[in-house]
């Protein structure tokens, strides 16, 4: 699927033609530079590697410096591979123009990290029992996690406390409301994973 790398700018709302409020996310999409073209012959599959963002020369390893030099561009901070582009050559620039207003895209990002969280926040459990009538310390507990001597184990995938967020999340089928090519911005309906300023990839 062709796509582009971008940066989440933030959320706002705009109005539809009927006057309805549409909550929307503004994404700075591209411009991205083709840093590598993978072909069936050499790499076993066809793909295009795009680069986005600014990386300081002094923070770039020599190996990557050479990689960017081949494409004749400045060092880029983010590299992502996309399939489904045709007729792109090394050093070409991909902009937000590949998207049309009204079409549906998937946006992939890293969700905001919430740290180690209990089951009430992480999985929406209700806790155990009452908060009064002598009850104590069970309010946010997970309850039973299984039976006893049979099956004599806790089933895999049992929902428990653990790390929440800071995970790759795909928001599927978001409608593209506006494409502002002069500013390299696209506006999609709804929310997008991650904090403002975080890197996202947008796929058709």
């Amino acid at each position, binding site marked *: 699927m062709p796509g582009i790398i971008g940066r989440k700018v*933030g959320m706002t709302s*705009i109005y539809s033609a009927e006057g309805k409020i549409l909550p929307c996310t503004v994404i700075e999409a591209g411009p991205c530079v083709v840093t590598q073209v993978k072909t069936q012959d050499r790499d076993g599959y066809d793909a295009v590697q795009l680069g986005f963002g600014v990386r300081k020369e002094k923070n770039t390893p020599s190996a990557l410096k050479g990689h960017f030099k081949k494409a004749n561009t400045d060092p880029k901070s983010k590299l992502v591979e996309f399939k489904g582009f045709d007729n792109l050559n090394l050093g070409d620039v991909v902009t937000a123009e590949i998207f049309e207003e009204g079409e549906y895209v998937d946006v992939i990002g890293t969700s905001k990290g919430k740290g180690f969280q209990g089951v009430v926040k992480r999985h929406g459990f209700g806790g155990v029992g009452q908060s009064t009538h002598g009850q104590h310390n069970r309010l946010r507990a997970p309850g039973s996690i299984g039976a006893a001597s049979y099956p004599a184990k806790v089933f895999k995938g049992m929902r428990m406390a653990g790390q929440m967020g800071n995970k790759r999340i795909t928001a599927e089928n978001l409608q593209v409301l506006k494409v502002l090519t002069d500013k390299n911005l696209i*506006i999609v309906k709804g929310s997008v994973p991650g904090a403002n300023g975080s890197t996202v990839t947008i796929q058709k």
Partner: protein
Amino acid sequence: MSNNVIIREIQNELVERKELPNFGAGDTIIVSYKIKEGNKERTQLFQGVVIQRRGEGSTETFTVRKMSGNVGVERIFPVSSPFLESIQIVKKGAVRRARIFYFRERTGKSARIKEKRSFAK
């Protein structure tokens, strides 16, 4: 460009700004807004006291409260809604807070708001 600047630019570009009179919490206003019934459009009036204004830019809203019989009715209007036609200020209220939620608990005589007196020079 910083994120806030971009968002503000987009709001200026894509959302029409309305010329509204300067009003705030405690003011009594008449809001005229369009409502759609099937294919017909008509204007309705809502008179009440402004409880709060919240948000900023094109996402700003204000809440108007009125007593309908003895049931309180509150309506939230987005400032830049295309359905919003005009706002007329009936009375300026003198309140100390930006959000007068205490007003909800008031009925009868205590639900009066002192009028702000302006000294024209």
